[in-house]
Structures are given as structure tokens and as C-alpha cells.
């Protein structure tokens, strides 16, 4: 069962048994959970006529007792406090409380204590504690994502909160799926180990009754891995629709904020139809997006052109009908006999040409027409803006080198290419930084002199570059720290595979990279995930191959990896993969996390 469906089912169940006019109250995290799967018009159908945030609801004292309040919030102590105040002075007729995760007994006690007016009708736990953007991809949208890179001693309470939130999110996913998994983690990552162990404790000891579901033939698998095992994927530039939008513009909760790219052109007629500065890119609601989200940029261009042509056909015929309709209507103002005859003739002629039926059909199909118009203008705008960015930042050139660094060998040639691009004036700072990082990750041990030269060149070219960031990355995710065979040069099988691929040639230079996740998924499918690298927690054991696998990436996932998972699922290998992370990264976000972690570790080391 897909994750989107689970969250929708939870929300449906919340609203269906409560009759009458309702107000839905959310907090800053559940608003994302709900908005991404449920639309405003669907809420209206369920008679929810007001949606508020739990922070702002107490600002007003207006009593609206004809409304029933449905709360859907996370069970944090802040929310419980706010609820306390609101229950003590109730504004609504009835209160139905739904929490997105497990409540502690003390919290229930506090709530019961404050409910003096006895307005609370029910208190339930509905485990929709994650943001389900796509059917097999979820995220937790965590703010302080950089904490996973730091050792525990630096900020123990922060790391504890981080770990708790992750455990809550993973637990919610499995409760929504009604499964209890066998847990494995990446040995080299402390954070992953900690999260895996705490999840096991929750599922098997603390709340073992709640998780005691019907056993299936083979237990599902939860694999907790660390972002730092594959630092290459978030650094690469993307060329498939969904990933590209997130990389170049930014996709948050399936929304794109076009204000981020500066002024929009007002001369193009189609673009000016875009009234709002934000658009929605959701595979559930937009059929064109669903069929194109994993296609590469060239194919998208062709498909969009086809869509625009179809739309212009419809628009043209509508234009004709509108003019004919207005002509007939204006003729009818005169009522002399001659004109009546004229009208008769016109109408008969029109009918011969089938115009009146078209007219009727136009009125019938007007809402669809409007929707199509909105959709076309949205996609055209996005693709136009992205093309402009590609042109301005010379991304075709940069990306080619990036892909070579990630996939093919040849240190000398790589050094030359990177140096050329560093010298190129039109390449932006962030692209220069990414190139040097990719080079450093690949050729860390080869030719340290040239590596040093690149560092110096980068520092001299980019004034805003934070010193030592590349070195920090190498310390976090260097060759010693990584488990997986990121560049396919560790074991013979991978080397052979790479050589074969090089000989065969690639379809598209820009999309030749496969994230490390692909290899991990393949190992799981073949049942050959090494115990040494990915040990089990406690005395868990997996018999045979799992049929459902949830891979949780501490530090964040990328849309390239989610595409990889979706394509893997569509091959019907008998295993269903679900991918989740603490955030959805693009290169900007990954670099931001790195910088933040570096800043903290620097200040920490000063203190020590």
C-alpha cells in the first residue's frame, strides 16, 4: 500500500464520523503532512470550513460554538501546553483530538486535567507523522539536519532530539503499513546505529503490543544508512524533471516557489496566464507530471511542445465559437422579420457546420479548458525558466565534467577539465565548489599535489568560499569512512562492470550516473547484502528475501534516488522498496548542512 494512500485514509477516518461544520487545527509540521495529500476542495466536501494553526487559534476570543474542532498535531510538549490553554477556554462546541504519534501517559493526564468543561469527545493516535510526497518516497522535513554529521559529544541533547524525531517518523511509517521489520544499519555510521537501536527498542520492547502485527511469510526490512556513504549524488546536477526542478529552483512539499528565480517574463502570452507565484507539482494530481517526472530534459521539451500544440487547437476552436456565439446573440437584439430570416439562415448554416453543438460543448467543457490552460502555462513556465538557468550557468558544460568525475576514470584528464572550468568566468561559485568536491572525493589519494593546487585555486577564485569545506567533506565522507563502493573501483566485479559499460557507451552522458542506492537495492534483491557492512540489530535475523524494504537515509534523500526507487519498483522484482530521509536534498541544501556542521565543529574544537 502506498504511503500517500495511508495518510489520506487517516484523514478520511478523522473527518468522516464527525457531522456538521468543522474546523481543522494543525501545527507547523502536520500542515505539510496534510497539505501534500489532501486538497482544500476535498476538505470542503467533508464540511471542514476553516483550517487554522494551533499557534494562531488562541489569538482570537471569538466563540464559534457551532463548529466542531478537529485537532491533528504532533504530541510534543509545546502542543500539549497550547492545547491545555485552549481546552481551559474552549471556543468550539466539541473537541476531537488526533495525535500523529504516540502519546505519553503524562501528556494524557495533563490534557484530562485541563478539560474542565468536558468538551473533548475523543483522543486518538493516527500515525501520519511523515510527509508522503510520492507513493514510495517520504521525508521528515527536519530543520537541523546537519546534526548527523557531528559526534555525539558536541551537542548531546540536540542529537537526542534529532534521533527521537527520526525514530518517531520511522515508527509512524511502519504503523501506517502495519508491519514490524527486521532492522539493519550501516556499521560505519554512529548516528545510523543509534537510530536503528532505538527503533528496535521501541518496536520490540517499549511498545511491543502496539507493533505486534500479523506475521507475514518474510519480515520486512528496515535499513538505516547514512548520507555520507554517498556524498556524490546530492552534489550532481540533475536532468530529469522532478530532480531538476528541485536542483535549480527548489521543490518544497510538492510546491515550487517561482519568486525564487526573480522576475518572470511578462511578454509571453502563455506565461502571463500564471496568476500565482507558486505552483504545485504533484504526481497524484497532474497527469502530465506523472508521466514526465522521471524523463530527461530533452524528452520533456518535446512532450511539452506536443501539449502546447494540442492546447492551441482547442483554444482556436473555442475562439471561433465565442465570436459566432456573440454574433448570433447580437443579431437577436433586432426583431424585424428580415433579420429573423437572416438569423434563421445563419443558424441553419451554423448548424450545418456543427457550430451550435460546439458552442454547447464549449460551455460544458469550460472548466476543463481552464484547467488545461493553467497546466500548460505552469509547465511551459517551469521549463522556460530552467532552460534559462542552464544557459546562464553553462550547466551543460559543467554537468558533463561532473558526470565524468562521478562515473569514468582518468585522473589526469579530470584534473585538466576541472582546472579549465575553474578558470572559466561564467561558471558560478557553487558549481566550482561542487566540481572540486567531486574531484576530491574521487581522486582523494591520487596526486595530492594537484589536489592542493585545486584547493588553492578554488579559494582564490571564490571569495565567499569557506576555507576548508572540501577538507571537511573528505573527513566526513572520505574513502575510509565509506562502506559502499561509490565509484565502482573497489572490488573486481564492479571494475569489470564499469569497463563493460564504458565499452558499450552510454545513451545520455548527462544521466549516466547511478546512485549508490541502486547497488544497495540490487544486493538486497539478490539477498547478498553483506552482514559485515550492514549488521542486524540485536538478535534479529532475516530468513530469505524480504518483500518490503524501507530504506531510511539519515541526512536526507535526493530526487534522483527516489526516481531510482520508483523505477526499481516498476520492474516487478517481487520486492517493494520505500525510501525515506530526514530531508530532501539538493546541492544547495547539502552544502548548507556541511557548512553548518563545519561551523559548529570548529567552534566546538575552539572550546575544547
Amino acid at each position, binding site marked *: 500500500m502506498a504511503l500517500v494512500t495511508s495518510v489520506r485514509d487517516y484523514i478520511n477516518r478523522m473527518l468522516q464520523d464527525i457531522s456538521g461544520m468543522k474546523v481543522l487545527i494543525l501545527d507547523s509540521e502536520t500542515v505539510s503532512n496534510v497539505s501534500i495529500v489532501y486538497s482544500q476542495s476535498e476538505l470542503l466536501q467533508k464540511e471542514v470550513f476553516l483550517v487554522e494553526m494551533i499557534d494562531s487559534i488562541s489569538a482570537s476570543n471569538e466563540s464559534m460554538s457551532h463548529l466542531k474542532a478537529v485537532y491533528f498535531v504532533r504530541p510534543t510538549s509545546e502542543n500539549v501546553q497550547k492545547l491545555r490553554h485552549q481546552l481551559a477556554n474552549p471556543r468550539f462546541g466539541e473537541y476531537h483530538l488526533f495525535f500523529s504519534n504516540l502519546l505519553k501517559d503524562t501528556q494524557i493526564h495533563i490534557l484530562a486535567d485541563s478539560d474542565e468543561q468536558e468538551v473533548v469527545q475523543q483522543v486518538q*493516535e493516527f500515525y501520519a507523522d511523515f510527509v508522503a510526497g510520492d507513493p514510495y518516497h517520504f521525508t521528515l522535513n527536519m530543520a537541523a539536519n546537519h546534526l548527523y554529521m557531528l559526534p555525539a559529544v558536541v551537542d548531546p541533547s540536540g542529537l537526542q532530539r534529532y534521533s527521537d524525531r527520526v525514530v518517531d517518523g520511522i515508527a509512524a511509517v511502519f*504503523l501506517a503499513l502495519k508491519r514490524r521489520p527486521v532492522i539493519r544499519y550501516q556499521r560505519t555510521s554512529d548516528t545510523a546505529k543509534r537510530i536503528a537501536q532505538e527503533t528496535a527498542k521501541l518496536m520490540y520492547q517499549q511498545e511491543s503490543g502496539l507493533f505486534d502485527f500479523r506475521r507475514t511469510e518474510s519480515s520486512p526490512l528496515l535499513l538505516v544508512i547514512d548520507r555520507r556513504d554517498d556524498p556524490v549524488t546530492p552534489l550532481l546536477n540533475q536532468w530529469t524533471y522532478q530532480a531538476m526542478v528541485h536542483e535549480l529552483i527548489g521543490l518544497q512539499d510538492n510546491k515550487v516557489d517561482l519568486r525564487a528565480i526573480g522576475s518572470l517574463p511578462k511578454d509571453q502570452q502563455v506565461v502571463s496566464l500564471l496568476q500565482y507565484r507558486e505552483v504545485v507539482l504533484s504526481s497524484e494530481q497532474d497527469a502530465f507530471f506523472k508521466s514526465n517526472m522521471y524523463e530527461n530534459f530533452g524528452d520533456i521539451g518535446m512532450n511539452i511542445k506536443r501539449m502546447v500544440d494540442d492546447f492551441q487547437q482547442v483554444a482556436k476552436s473555442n475562439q471561433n465559437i465565442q465570436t459566432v456565439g456573440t454574433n448570433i446573440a447580437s443579431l437577436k437584439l433586432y426583431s424585424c422579420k428580415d433579420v429573423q430570416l437572416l438569423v434563421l439562415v445563419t443558424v441553419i448554416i451554423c448548424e450545418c457546420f456543427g457550430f451550435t453543438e460546439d458552442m454547447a*460543448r464549449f460551455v460544458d467543457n469550460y472548466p476543463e479548458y481552464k484547467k488545461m490552460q493553467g497546466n500548460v502555462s505552469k509547465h511551459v513556465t517551469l521549463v522556460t525558466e530552467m532552460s534559462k538557468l542552464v544557459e546562464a550557468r553553462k550547466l551543460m558544460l559543467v554537468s558533463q565534467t561532473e558526470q565524468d568525475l562521478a562515473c569514468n576514470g582518468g585522473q589526469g584528464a579530470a584534473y585538466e577539465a576541472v582546472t579549465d572550468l575553474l578558470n572559466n568566468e561564467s561558471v558560478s561559485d557553487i558549481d566550482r565548489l561542487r566540481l572540486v568536491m567531486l574531484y576530491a572525493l574521487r581522486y582523494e589519494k591520487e596526486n595530492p599535489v594537484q589536489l592542493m593546487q585545486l584547493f588553492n585555486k578554488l579559494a582564490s577564485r571564490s571569495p565567499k568560499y569557506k576555507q576548508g569545506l572540501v577538507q571537511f567533506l573528505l573527513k566526513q565522507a572520505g574513502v575510509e569512512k565509506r562502506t559502499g563502493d561509490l565509484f565502482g573501483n573497489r572490488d573486481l566485479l564492479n571494475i569489470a562492470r564499469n569497463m563493460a559499460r564504458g565499452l558499450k557507451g552510454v545513451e545520455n552522458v548527462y544521466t549516466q550516473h547511478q546512485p549508490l542506492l541502486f547497488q544497495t537495492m540490487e544486493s538486497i534483491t539478490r539477498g547478498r547484502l553483506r552482514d559485515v557492512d550492514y549488521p542486524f540489530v540485536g538478535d534479529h535475523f532475516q530468513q530469505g528475501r524480504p518483500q518490503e524494504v524501507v530504506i531510511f537515509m539519515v541526512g536526507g534523500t535526493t530526487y534522483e534516488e527516489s526516481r531510482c526507487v520508483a523505477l526499481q519498483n516498476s520492474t516487478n522484482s517481487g520486492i517493494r522498496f520505500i525510501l525515506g530521509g530526514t530531508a530532501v536534498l539538493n546541492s544547495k541544501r547539502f552544502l548548507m548542512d556541511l557548512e553548518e556542521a563545519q561551523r559548529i565543529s570548529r567552534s566546538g574544537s575552539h572550546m575544547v
Partner: protein
Amino acid sequence: MATRNRTLLFRKYRNSLRSVRAPMTEAKSGVGPVIEMASASLLHPKRSYAPVSTEDPGSSSRGGAITVGLPPDWVDVSEEISGNIQRARTKMAELGKAHAKALMPTFGDGKEDQHQIESLTQEITFLLRKSEKQLQKLSAAGPSEDSNVRKNVQRSLATDLQFLSMELRKKQSTYLKRLRLQKEDGGDLEMNLNGSSSRAEDDDFDDILFSEHQMSKIKKSEAISVEREKEIQQVVESVNELAQIMKDLSALVIDQGTIVDRIDYNIQNVASTVEDGLKQLQKAERTQRSGGMVMCASVLVILCFIMIVLLILKEIFL
């Protein structure tokens, strides 16, 4: 999907805490319980929800007598509209049946079927029109929470209305299509009969009958086209009416799948659009005051006065 119900535990805590609180109030005054009983009996659903006994902390012993209070007036309007929509729905079902009956081949005139269909269509259109006008009444001024609720109620009713109008249009167009097909078949049949008979008689009665047949053919086709024109006129009229309704409604109805249909967008934008609206109004006021229109109008008025004065002077001095 798994859920867990904590209501029982919650109620248990609530009751135990209540009994902890209650003995404290009983100790305050012996009259306390009596006041509570009286206040409990005064409460009934129509009373607006404010704790009746404000100085009585033991009002929690009212137990389950929770009242959902009296809703504001606009709710009556919205209920009226939804009642109209419901009535329109039932009439549409009747209309469907009447259409089916009229399409069945009968020996009679079919006039009363037509009449019924016409009257039903008119009633439904009238109901939709009325609901649409009432819908405008639901708009409220001011950025209160109540106005948000009203706006959302408006939207949901507008969506229902639009859906009904479209359904009506579809029913009408399918009916007319099938009717036309039927008439065409009948007409062709007639034409064919006439044509074959005219061919048979052509040889015998040359000019006169030929022209007579021609005349009757022309008259028949004229009659058919007049009928067709009437039907098409009806179509055009109802199309116009419904198009008008749809245009008004489309301003209210949410376009599904766009950013306006997102819950988080609506929450964020409530505050900012109101501010923007206020700024726009102020700006509009300013431009209107300093606008060219006002200037032009005043200049013209002054000119008029001058002309009148000149005219009077001319009359006096001539």
C-alpha cells in the same frame, strides 16, 4: 493502518480528576449542588454556549450536557441554498425520466411531454439562478475567522451548483441530440415517401403536380427548419443563461490541482491578502481622487456654467 484509541484512558483520568476537584467545591457551600442542578435544567440546545453559572467552578458536574451553540444567521442562508440544491437534484432525476419518456416513440402528440420537460427545465434553471443569487449574500466583509468560514461555505456550495449546471447542460444536449436524430429519421422517411410518390406520379402529371409537390416539399422543409430554429433558439437561450451562471460561479469555485487548492497556501495567504486588499483599496481611492476623470468632469461642469452665463448675457444684451 494502525490507530490507537486513548479516549478511555483520557476519560478515566478526567473523571478521577473531576472527583478530586468536586469534593473541594462541595465543601465551599451547601447550596452549591442546588445551583448546579438548576443551571443544568436551564440549559437546552438553543441556548448560546456560555457557561451559565460563571461563579461556579463545579460546572463540570454538568456531565454530558454539552451544547453545540446557536449558529450565526448566515448559516440559515447556507442551509436554504443547500436545500434548493437538493430540490434541484431531485427535479433533475425527474427530468431524466421525462426525457426518456419523450424519446420513446408514441402515437400521441407528445406535446404534454414537451410541456413537462419545458416546465421542469425552467424550474431547475430558476432554482439554480436563485441559489446563485443567494450565494452572493454569503460574502462577508472584514478579515475575521467567521468570514473565512463563510468564504469556504460559499466555495463548497458554488462547486455543487456548478456541477449541477453542467449536469443539466449535458442532459439537455443529449436529449436534443437524440431528438434531432429521431426527427431526422422521421423527416427523411417522409421525404423519401414523398420523393418516391413524386417519382411515380411525375410521369403522369407533369408540370402542375410536380410544382405542387415542390411547393409541399418546400413548405414541409420550411416547417421543419422553423421547428429546428425554435429548438436551437431554446438551446442558445439556456446556454446563455447557464453560461452566465457558470461565469459567476467560476470566480468562486476552486480550480482543482492548482496552488489555490492547497491547504497550506490558504492558511498562509489569509493574512497577507487582506493586507494587500486594504492597500489596493487605499491606492485606488487615492488615484480616483486625483484621477483624470474627476478633473475632466469638474472642468466640463465649469464650462457648462460659463456657457449658460454667456447665453444669459447674450439674451440680456440683445
